[in-house]
C-alpha cells in the first residue's frame, strides 16, 4: 500500500464532495430559466457582497499562484514577492474603472469586455481583436491550473495522466450544467480550506523551525551561497525597476482578463463592487503569507521532486503536517484549481459566443442559443487546455501564460481608457493593438536566462542594455509594449482624424457609466417600445 494512503483518501473525499456541490449548484438561487448567458454565464447578475468576495477571490488567487509564488521565493528570493505589491496596487487602480464598466454593462446587457468595445467604438473588428486576445490569454491560464493539481498528485505518488483527465471531466460536466453558479458555490469551500490551511501553516511551521528570524536567516544564507547575482531576501539595484514595473503591469492586466470581468459583472450593484475592492486585499495578506512558505521550505531543507520547483509547497506540507492534514491541504490546492478553471472557461466561451459566433456566424442567435453555444464552447476550451498539458511540455504552458499577461495588457487602451474617453479613433486603437502585440513578442523573444541557458521567452524581465542603455536594469516587457501601443494609438487617431476616416458610432451615453441597480436597462426600454 502507498505510504500516502491517508492523504489520498482525504483528498479524494473532499474533491468528490465539492464536485457534488458543483452539480447541485444549478438549483442554487434557481432562476425560472437557465438558458441565457445572463443566467448561465453571469449567475443572473445577482451576487451580493459575500458571494462576490468568495467568487472573485477564488477566481484571482488561483491554485497555480499558491504553488508557483512560494516556488519563486524558494528559487530566487525577494523578486518573487512582487505578488504582494501587485495585488495591493490593483484594487485602488481599478476601483473607479470597474464601477463604470459594471454600470455600462448593466444598462446595455454586456457579457464580455469585447461587447463594451463593440458598442463604444462601433467596431466589430476591434471587438474581435479584443475577444481573440482574451481567449488566447486565458487558455494557457486554464492549463496552468492543471499544473497546480499535478504538483499535488505528484507529491501523493500518483503518476500518469488519467487522474487529471478524470478531474477535468468532472469539472467540465458541472460547469456545463450549472454555469457560473458552480464555481461561486465551490469557492466557499475552497477559500475556507485555504484560509484554514495557511493560518495553521504560518503558526505551526515557524514554531517547528525555530521562529521567523531563523527562517529568514536560512533563506539569506542560502542565497549568499549561490553564484547567481539576482537572488537574495532583498532586491538588488538591478532588479528594483523590474519589481515595480512587473507589479504595476500585472496590476493593470489583472482586471482586463475576461474571467475577472465575468466575476465583476455577476455582482448585483455598484456597492457590492466598492465593498469588495476594500475587502479583497484580505486575500493579498493570505498570498503574502503563502509566498513565505518558500522560505520555510528553505529552512526545513525541502527539495523539489525532480526539477519541478512547483512541488516545494506540497513537499513542505508532507514533511511537517500529519497525513490527514496534508490531505486537507492538498485538497485545498486541488479544489483551488477548479474554481478559476471553471470561471476562465466560462469567460472564454462567452467571448466566443458573443463576439465571434453571434457577430459573424449567427447574427440572429437568441438567448437560449447563446447559452447552448457557450456551454459547448466551455467544454472545448477545457479540452484544449488539457491537450496543452498532455501534449506540450509544462514549461511551454508557463511561457504561454507569460505571453498571455503581456498581450492582455494590450487591450487596456480600448477597454479601460475607453471607459473614460471616446477620444481614440477605432483605426488608431487597432493599429496600437497590433504594434503592442508585435513589440511584446519581440521583447519576450529577446529575454534569455544565462543560468538555465534558455535563450528565448525565459521571463518577462527585459534588459534595458539591449536598447543600447548602459545599465544592468531590467523592466517588465508588458509595460514597454503598452507604451508603444499607446503612442501608436495616439498617432493613429491623429492621422485618422486628419484624413477624415469614418469613425464608428458610440452607442453609450455619459449617464450609462453611472447607472445602478434599479435603473432602466436598454433591453427593457426596447420591450416597452
Amino acid at each position: 500500500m502507498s505510504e500516502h494512503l491517508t492523504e489520498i483518501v482525504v483528498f479524494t473525499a473532499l474533491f468528490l464532495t465539492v464536485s457534488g456541490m458543483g452539480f447541485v449548484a444549478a438549483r442554487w438561487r434557481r432562476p425560472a430559466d437557465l438558458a441565457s448567458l445572463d443566467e448561465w454565464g453571469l449567475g443572473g447578475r445577482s451576487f451580493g457582497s459575500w458571494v462576490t468576495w468568495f467568487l472573485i477571490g477564488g477566481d484571482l488567487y488561483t491554485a497555480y499562484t499558491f504553488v508557483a509564488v512560494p516556488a519563486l521565493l524558494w528559487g530566487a528570493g525577494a523578486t518573487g514577492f512582487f505578488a504582494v505589491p501587485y495585488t495591493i496596487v490593483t484594487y485602488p487602480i481599478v476601483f473607479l474603472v470597474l464601477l463604470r464598466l459594471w454600470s455600462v454593462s448593466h444598462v446595455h446587457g454586456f457579457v464580455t469586455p469585447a461587447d463594451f468595445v463593440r458598442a463604444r467604438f462601433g467596431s466589430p473588428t476591434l471587438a474581435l481583436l479584443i475577444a481573440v486576445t482574451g481567449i488566447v490569454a486565458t487558455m494557457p491560464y486554464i492549463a496552468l491550473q492543471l499544473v497546480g493539481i499535478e504538483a499535488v498528485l505528484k507529491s501523493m505518488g500518483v503518476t500518469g495522466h488519467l487522474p487529471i483527465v478524470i478531474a477535468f471531466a468532472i469539472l467540465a460536466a458541472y460547469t456545463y450544467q450549472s454555469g457560473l453558479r458552480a464555481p461561486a458555490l465551490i469557492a466557499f469551500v475552497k477559500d475556507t480550506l485555504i484560509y484554514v490551511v495557511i493560518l495553521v501553516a504560518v503558526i505551526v511551521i515557524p514554531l517547528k523551525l525555530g521562529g521567523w528570524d531563523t527562517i529568514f536567516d536560512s533563506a539569506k544564507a542560502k542565497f549568499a551561497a549561490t553564484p547567481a547575482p539576482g537572488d537574495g531576501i532583498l532586491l538588488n539595484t538591478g532588479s528594483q525597476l523590474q519589481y515595480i514595473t512587473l507589479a504595476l503591469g500585472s496590476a493593470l492586466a489583472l482586471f482586463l482578463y475576461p474571467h475577472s470581468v465575468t466575476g465583476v459583472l455577476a455582482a448585483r450593484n455598484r456597492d457590492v463592487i466598492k465593498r469588495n475592492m476594500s475587502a479583497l486585499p484580505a486575500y493579498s495578506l493570505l498570498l503574502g503569507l503563502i509566498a513565505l512558505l518558500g522560505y520555510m521550505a528553505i529552512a526545513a531543507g525541502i527539495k523539489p521532486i525532480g526539477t519541478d520547483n512547483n512541488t516545494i509547497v506540497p513537499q513542505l506540507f508532507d514533511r511537517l503536517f500529519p497525513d490527514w492534514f496534508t490531505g486537507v491541504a492538498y485538497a485545498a490546492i486541488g479544489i483551488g484549481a477548479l474554481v478559476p478553471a471553471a470561471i476562465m472557461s466560462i469567460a472564454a466561451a462567452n467571448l466566443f459566443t458573443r463576439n465571434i459566433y453571434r457577430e459573424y456566424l449567427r447574427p440572429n442567435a437568441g438567448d437560449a442559443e447563446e447559452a447552448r453555444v457557450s456551454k459547448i464552447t466551455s467544454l472545448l476550451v477545457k479540452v484544449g487546455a488539457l491537450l496543452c498539458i498532455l501534449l506540450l511540455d509544462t514549461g511551454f504552458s508557463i511561457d504561454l501564460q507569460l505571453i498571455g499577461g503581456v498581450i492582455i495588457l494590450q487591450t487596456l487602451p480600448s477597454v479601460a481608457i475607453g471607459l473614460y474617453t471616446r477620444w481614440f479613433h477605432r483605426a488608431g486603437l487597432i493599429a496600437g493593438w497590433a504594434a503592442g502585440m508585435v513589440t511584446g513578442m519581440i521583447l519576450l523573444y529577446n529575454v534569455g536566462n544565462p543560468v538555465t541557458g534558455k535563450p528565448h521567452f525565459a521571463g518577462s524581465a527585459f534588459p534595458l542594455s539591449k536598447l543600447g542603455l548602459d545599465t544592468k536594469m531590467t523592466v517588465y516587457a508588458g509595460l514597454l509594449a503598452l507604451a508603444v501601443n499607446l503612442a501608436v494609438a495616439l498617432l493613429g487617431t491623429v492621422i485618422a482624424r486628419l484624413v477624415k476616416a469614418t469613425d464608428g458610432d458610440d452607442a453609450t451615453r455619459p449617464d450609462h457609466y453611472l447607472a445602478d441597480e434599479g435603473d432602466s436597462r436598454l433591453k427593457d426600454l426596447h420591450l416597452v417600445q
Partner: protein
Amino acid sequence: MTTPDKGRTDRSPWNRLLAVPIILPLLPFLFNFDEPRLLGFPGFYWLQLSFIAVGVLCTTVVYRMTRRGR
C-alpha cells in the same frame, strides 16, 4: 421606470486618496532593507504586508465617503 439622476457623478475629492496605496508599494527605497525586523520579519516583508492595511483603509474611506444618499 426610473431615469438616472442627471446630477450623478463619480468624481469626488476623496478619490485622490486612492493614489496613496498605488504609489506607496511602488517606491522600493521605502522598504528595501532588512533592519529593523518586526517579529522576525525583515523590513522588506513586514512593511509591504502592512501596505495591505493602508490599501484597505484608503479604499474603505473612499467607499464610505462617496456612497450615494438613499
